[in-house]
């Protein structure tokens, strides 16, 4: 898609703040799930309560949430970098 000819290339600050709030909310959500799973595993280890069974599913779930967190951040900051690269005038 071509950039609109008459569109502002720098969003207003409150737009960015809202975007940042979304990113923080998502990061908190994914981080909380990882912490929650880790806590339940820790409890099962402390209570010697079939620790191995807990670890099995956690090995799948934790990396998924960490990966989604990284991916969302990659897109968020990447698109911002891509836009800024287009805005900044060339040194030449």
């Amino acid at each position: 898609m071509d950039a609109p000819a008459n569109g502002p290339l720098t969003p207003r600050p409150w737009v960015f703040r809202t975007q940042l709030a979304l990113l923080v909310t998502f990061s908190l959500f994914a981080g909380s799930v990882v912490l929650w799973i880790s806590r339940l595993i820790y409890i099962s280890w402390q209570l010697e309560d079939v620790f191995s069974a807990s670890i099995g599913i956690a090995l799948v779930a934790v990396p998924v949430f960490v990966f989604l967190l990284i991916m969302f951040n990659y897109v968020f900051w990447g698109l911002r970098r891509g836009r800024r690269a287009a805005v900044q005038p060339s040194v030449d």
Partner: protein
Amino acid sequence: MAEHDWRKEEDAILLEPVFSTGWRFYLTLAGLGALVLWGVVSYVVQYERGLGVTGMAFPVSWSFYIVNFVFFIGISHAGTLISAILRLSQAEWRRPITRIAEVITVLVLGIGGMNILIDLGRPDRIQNLFLYGRYQSPLLWDATSVTAYLTASSVYLYIPMIPDIAVLRDHSPGGWRRFLYEVLALGWEGTQLQHRILNRAIAIMAVLVVPIAVSVHTVVSFVFSMTLQPMWHSTIFGPYFVVGAIFSGIAALIVVMAVLRKVFHLEDYLQPIHFNFLGLLMLVMVLLWCYFTFAEYLTTYYGNEPNEMRVFMTKFSGKYAPFFWAMVVFNFGIPFPLLAFNRTRTIAGTVIASLSIIVGMWLERFIIIIPTLANPRLTQYAQGSYVPSIVEIGIMAGCVALFMLLYVLFSKLFPIVSITEVREGREKTVEIVKERLQRYRPGLGKLPQVPA
């Protein structure tokens, strides 16, 4: 920014539902809203009086809600999995249908998960699940995997939508919608670097969501197969559930496509060939489902274990036989002949087959869950029976209506067919396919000339 006129866009028909609103939209909202309200009222009754208002009675402790949970999670495989597989296999015909499918996934996953909460007798104690949950329990695995799939599917729906949201931002007249699009567009201007980042993210997500989707329905099956209940303790339950999920998912996708095609006049985008290809995919799934069902039931029959046979016979010739044989007719008897022949694999044919499969797969979930609970392994427990109450029917109707309502609202806010993907396909498909053919065709470079 002065907004551009969306009517001048090449794919203006895709933007029309977003920017113009007719009386039919409000009528649909009102109708679906009334059904959702029925569901809410039913739940309030259940919340106040307890699960006694449902048809559940010992030993049948799971019923409509768990059937709906498994059914909705199955339907969710429509989207992300099918869309990801088509993306990864570079099927060019996928372009108009990926978003339709992905939206189904996100919405039904939410509603499926909601059914678990509805099934709780004391929802006010939900915090105990988080504080003192035992991660050894397959029920908690379920909660984790459904949350993971919902999160991944939402990200997978959102990322490819960014360029389309930017189109909406550029055409939006102002107000809260303009703000919403500005926020969600993440500053998309369509630069080369942004394209590269977005395409990389979409490709990685497509690879990631396939194993997540498969694992989710496998984990759903674990809720049953990890127990020693008759006709649940089966090693093939995982793949059997995954096959059933993809099967019902494709069916739901076809029905939604047909409705959108009719309502939004998308005949140019959703063509008979899309229904034909999905119909062929569904035919494969009909046969796979039959194979798994046959394997599952034959093993039980041959084993002749008394507890298992009690459940088996109640399905085959007992109280639940009408549901079992209806399932066979709806999942095989009706769709197979419709999908097997070119002449009947039309839009109408695939839609009839799909509707039949949706009913059949709901019955399949019912026939897996209820007869086993009504005939438990421990013989000191009396045999049970189950008839749904009006409260359960109301909540189920509310859930289905909620899915439709949210789908309508989504199509009011965002284009239901990906403008960017369709545009890219229009501009590059011939070149992409030609280049791909040159890679593997014997006699390299001797392709017939494609007229310009």
